[in-house]
């Protein structure tokens, strides 16, 4: 420690202190100093003491200022604040069921999908590896929202958050929809927004499966969507518990489905009509009196229980997220008047120059 500069020591001490108070996700954070929080607040045109949401058992207040403090800790840029503000409104929406899925033994994760022009403005990845590490906006926005929820609701593993296994994706699962490569209307348009709106959508799945069709052809893709969904991913929409699954289709396979003239709704109908799960052979038939018990029943109650989005890059691997016991809820993102100026100011902070190819093949 004696070799460290005063600033480094301070960074260590602050991180120790925040960790001991349960304010971090276990990784090092950027200290939410007055100056950094002040800078973060440039990204939002709401007063710092405005309550954005009330979360947890006691409906604890999450203010603009505390959201900014969490954004600083997570490494966000001020330009991410509008997305964070909308994400917090999604968490606070009773339809998100975050009060349940955030603490359940099922270790449910906060799954975020971003749509609209904000994807390009903030460089939120929608193509290769979108749900994985590496992308600044994808990772830090999800991280900030996860920490903001925990720090406001005051839930910790083993006390209130009783996830048995935990979930490596819990605070880090955010991608944009690949609208440009998708043959379908965007996810947010399906959920009632205009294509020009920027939105963030929240669901609460605890698992995902990646799979690929045996042929890059529509019928194989459809079959694969059904065959690769585990029987444990059951779904039914409803007031008490809105359980859904989301099929995330890559652009190549989405294009094959488009060649079959299949809309998203038709795809959902096909999946619901053709998905069954085997029943417990010892369970008595609940509806057929003395008849022979059925050996299989419908896996999904209705098409509202099945969601479809187009995300990912080249290749034929798709993903199924489920079962979500939260949402999905979608919120429109509102931007401050000076947003374009801020974007310009912070543009260099997230420039990618990972594999420079310019001039190599000339």
């Amino acid at each position: 420690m004696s070799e460290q500069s005063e600033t480094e020591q301070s960074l260590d001490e602050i991180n120790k202190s925040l960790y001991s108070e349960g304010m971090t996700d276990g990784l090092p954070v950027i200290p939410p100093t007055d100056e950094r929080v002040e800078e973060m607040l440039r990204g939002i045109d709401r007063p710092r003491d405005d309550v954005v949401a009330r979360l947890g058992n006691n409906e604890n207040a999450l203010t603009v200022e505390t959201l900014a403090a969490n954004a600083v800790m997570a490494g966000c840029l001020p330009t991410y604040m509008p997305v964070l503000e909308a994400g917090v409104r999604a968490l606070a929406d009773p339809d998100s069921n975050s009060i349940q899925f955030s603490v359940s033994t099922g270790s449910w994760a906060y799954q975020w999908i971003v749509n609209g022009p904000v994807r390009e403005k903030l460089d939120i990845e929608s193509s290769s590896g979108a749900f994985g590490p590496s992308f600044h906006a994808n990772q830090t926005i999800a991280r900030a929202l996860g920490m903001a929820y925990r720090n406001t609701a005051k839930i910790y593993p083993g006390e209130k958050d009783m996830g048995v296994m935990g979930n490596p994706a819990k605070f880090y699962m955010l991608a944009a929809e690949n609208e440009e490569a998708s043959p379908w209307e965007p996810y947010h348009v399906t959920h009632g927004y205009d294509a020009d709106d920027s939105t963030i959508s929240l669901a609460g799945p605890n698992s995902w499966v990646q799979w690929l069709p045996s042929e890059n052809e529509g019928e194989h893709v459809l079959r694969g969507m059904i065959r690769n969904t585990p029987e444990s991913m059951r779904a039914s929409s409803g007031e008490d518990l809105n359980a859904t699954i989301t099929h995330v289709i890559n652009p190549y396979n989405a294009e094959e489905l488009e060649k079959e003239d299949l809309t998203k709704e038709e795809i959902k109908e096909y999946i619901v009509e053709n998905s069954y799960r085997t029943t417990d052979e010892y369970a008595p038939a609940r509806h057929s009196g003395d008849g022979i018990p059925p050996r299989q029943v419908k896996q999904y109650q209705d098409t509202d229980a099945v969601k479809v989005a187009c995300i990912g890059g080249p290749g034929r691997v798709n993903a199924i997220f489920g079962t979500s016991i939260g949402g999905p809820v979608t919120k429109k993102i509102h931007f401050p008047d000076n947003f374009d100026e801020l974007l310009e100011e912070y543009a260099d902070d997230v420039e990618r120059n990972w594999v420079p190819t310019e001039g190599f093949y000339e």
Partner: protein
Amino acid sequence: MGLITPGSESDETEQLPLVPRVDSLDGKTIGLYDNGKPAAEPLLTAVKEKLADRYPDAEFTWYHVEHLNQIKNDDEQDAVKEWAADVDTAIGAIGDCGSCTKFLAWGIELIEDAGTPGVGLIDEGFELDYQSNAIERGRALRYKKTPVRCETTDLDRVRDEVSEDVVDGIVDELTRELNEKERADPVPQ
């Protein structure tokens, strides 16, 4: 270097008192509060059977939350309080997962709000969860750990697991006088 706290600032919850316990279960109307988890009904059934043997003059009345999540609704909360107001004491089950332990604590709190002494039955692995939910609500809600683990619905197995010692503990939680903290007595100046 000043820091902005990233957490909410509502730790200071006012300490609320529990409702005084009954002196005995003999001849009382005992409420059985099923929070909607599958293991709640068999556990409460086994407890009821054993209590009925001990207190033949006691009466039992059930409240079933049809789906666990319904306790989030104001109408359901009002209905629980209305039901609880008509019983002398109540036993709730079960806290055997993250959300159901939270919602069980909410249910026991509603029962106490109705002026009825209550106790929650929990899987022993969820003690800290129940406590932390109770602490957050500012009330030392009583509970009894049971060896009945998550999602055990086989009534015969549950009957075996609800020993006389477990029943002794439930009776104790419903009849033992409140201590100073549970009464939320003001701190002497």
